[in-house]
């Protein structure tokens, strides 16, 4: 591993002036090496993401458009999702977490990289094959007020997926299916003819979840599913999602900015910063033994509902704002806000890999972290 890493670092060093796309390629090879080495204790992954890239072109001119740059929303990320597990993705606004969701749903076309669903690369699919795969990957959206069509009844909203995939439920059977789904998500099946405005935010989110479940998918991608809800209702929806996961053996990709909720629901957590994965591991590894400085800063900034902890806890207050993804810093993207940054950080892109100093030991700190100076630091528990 160490040798491999060196070779790749050399490759990056040797080509300092390459264009954006080429740099991505260089980074890609290194990260795929790291990703393949991921632990396989959970059996076969249901979804494998490899070096996924999404660049949105920035153009200039009206008639003769010329590309002048690109917003590097997602810039080479890799991870696996296993059957029945929840992978949480956290990060601040603009880190690319919602773009990842869209790419996995194939709502956006990836610039580069692969997404394997049961061994099949879905970024290359189209037509009937794509439609078949999409049945198994569904989504729950953030805003329950805009993600439901106000002019459709609840029955039509939840039943709409059956129009596209009629093989799941024959026509005469649909009403009963929809009522079953309403019951499953804890709504009265008699509400089938009501309109979205007759429901509260939490109830609407349940409708959104019922629609996500309609096609009996294996994977549900949840993009901030509870952030628009009040605290007391949030808990209800989270509990519902956990219950459904057990019942239907669902895999969740749970995207959120609220770190406490992500810890609660996730088996593994990935931390994103400016289009890259900064650190990924189990919830204990990430929350109790973080090794990437960004994760540490993020965790220490979360206000904890315990007034006694406010003196005892160390706070890392970052300076400045997240840089623009159109023009990310060279080397490590976090270096402009990092207190550990050195010359090396500006020159070399840190790989997402288990830091060398931890590889031989069995500590929870031995998980993948993209930092040259990774070191363990507990910022969550008061000293």
């Amino acid at each position, binding site marked *: 591993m160490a040798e491999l890493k060196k070779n790749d670092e050399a490759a990056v060093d040797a080509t300092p002036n390459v264009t954006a796309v080429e740099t991505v390629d260089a980074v890609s090879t290194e990260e795929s090496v790291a990703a393949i080495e991921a632990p396989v204790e959970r059996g076969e992954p249901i979804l494998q993401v490899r070096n996924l890239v999404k660049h949105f072109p920035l153009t200039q001119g009206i008639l003769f458009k010329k590309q002048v740059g690109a917003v590097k929303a997602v810039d080479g990320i890799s991870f696996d999702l296993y059957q029945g597990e929840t992978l949480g993705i956290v990060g601040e606004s603009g880190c690319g977490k919602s773009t990842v969701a869209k790419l996995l749903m194939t709502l956006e076309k990836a610039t580069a990289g692969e997404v394997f669903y049961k061994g099949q690369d879905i970024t290359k699919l189209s037509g009937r094959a794509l439609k078949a795969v999409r049945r198994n990957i569904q989504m729950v959206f953030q805003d329950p007020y805009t993600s439901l069509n106000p002019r459709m009844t609840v029955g039509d909203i939840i039943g709409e997926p059956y129009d596209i995939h009629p093989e799941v439920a024959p026509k005469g059977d649909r009403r009963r299916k929809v009522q079953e789904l309403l019951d499953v998500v804890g709504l009265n099946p008699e509400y089938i003819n009501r309109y979205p405005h007759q429901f509260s935010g939490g109830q609407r989110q349940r409708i959104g979840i019922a629609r996500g479940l309609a096609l009996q998918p294996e994977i549900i991608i949840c993009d901030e599913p509870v952030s628009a809800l009040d605290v007391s209702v949030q808990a209800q929806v989270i509990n519902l999602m956990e219950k459904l996961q057990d019942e239907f053996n669902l895999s969740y990709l749970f995207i959120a900015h609220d770190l*406490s909720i992500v810890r609660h629901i996730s088996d593994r957590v990935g931390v994103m910063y400016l289009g890259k994965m900064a650190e990924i591991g189990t919830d204990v590894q990430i929350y109790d033994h973080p090794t990437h400085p960004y994760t540490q800063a993020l965790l*220490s900034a979360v206000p904890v509902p315990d007034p006694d902890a406010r003196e005892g806890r160390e706070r890392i207050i970052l300076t400045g704002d997240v840089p623009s993804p159109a023009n990310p810093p060279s080397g490590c993207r976090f270096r402009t806000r990092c207190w550990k940054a050195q010359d090396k950080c500006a020159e070399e892109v840190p790989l997402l890999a288990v830091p060398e100093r931890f590889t031989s030991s069995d500590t929870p700190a031995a998980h993948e972290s993209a930092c040259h100076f990774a070191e363990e630091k507990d910022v969550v528990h008061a000293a």
Partner: protein
Amino acid sequence: MPGPLLEVRDLHVEFRLRDGVAKAVNGVDCAVAEGETLAVLGESGSGKSVTAQAVMGILDMPPGRITGGEVVFRGRDLLKLREDERRGVRGREMAMIFQDALSSLNPVLSVGYQLGEMFTVHRGMSRKDAKAKAVELMDRVRIPAAKERVDDYPHQFSGGMRQRIMIAMALALEPDLIIADEPTTALDVTVQAQVMDLLAELQRELGMGLVLITHDLGVVADVADRIAVMYAGRIVETAPVHDIYKAPAHPYTRGLLDSIPRLDRKGRELYAIRGLPPNLTRIPSGCPFHPRCPLVRDVCRTDVPPLYEVEDGRGSACHFWQETLHG
């Protein structure tokens, strides 16, 4: 203990809507002392923002109507003042910070102009002096390169920087009281921490009273001295911050605390308060929380609980507060 800077007594606010009268605030009593941070905690529709707007005198009337109560600030009942007198209080003696800085700032005027306006309008300063003051304020809220950025427009700043400008604007005339309505809700956690730190530091420095309106139990625990929990337009519990987290005396507060996941450990299934927050046009009889309360008994359905004194400086509007406190 200094006397209260602001005292709200039995405030009632309602909104006349097409489908009835929404009773947004139903008898709120609270007080803020000089240099104190009071957090008003509540979910959407609990009446926390409407209370703040009524205190500031910026409630939309109609449809809103203040149907009773007093807002006593430094011995004067603000609700009895004429509008032009009220305007003198606003900004000079009490100021407000809003949640959404982008829609609170005027997009076609530079931030320097908007900050300077405080001085040209209230202090009659010249434009040039006002601009110098604006730079000073931007320095104070730690906006880097304030001199170069004073002529920039709101859209040229990031979310955190815009919220700093809002804070600068509130501080401009050195008011005695600042009301901050969800000041960090729209911001990312790392930026939220920066802004809260700044606010707490400026408050210490200037000795202002601060009313922090929020739904976030974490933010409250970090900065507040005292908490008032609101539900259906009433204060259901009020206590010093340490007491309320250790031993809540109202089932709603307890439910809220139990329903948030923890960062420092992985919990079991979350406790969920059953049901939904009440519709303000049809607030339940008796205790408004009774349809969702695990301790509900007959008396809760008929009698509105007063704010019982739990101990000095602590109150709970629950008939069975003793049970909640010790249970």
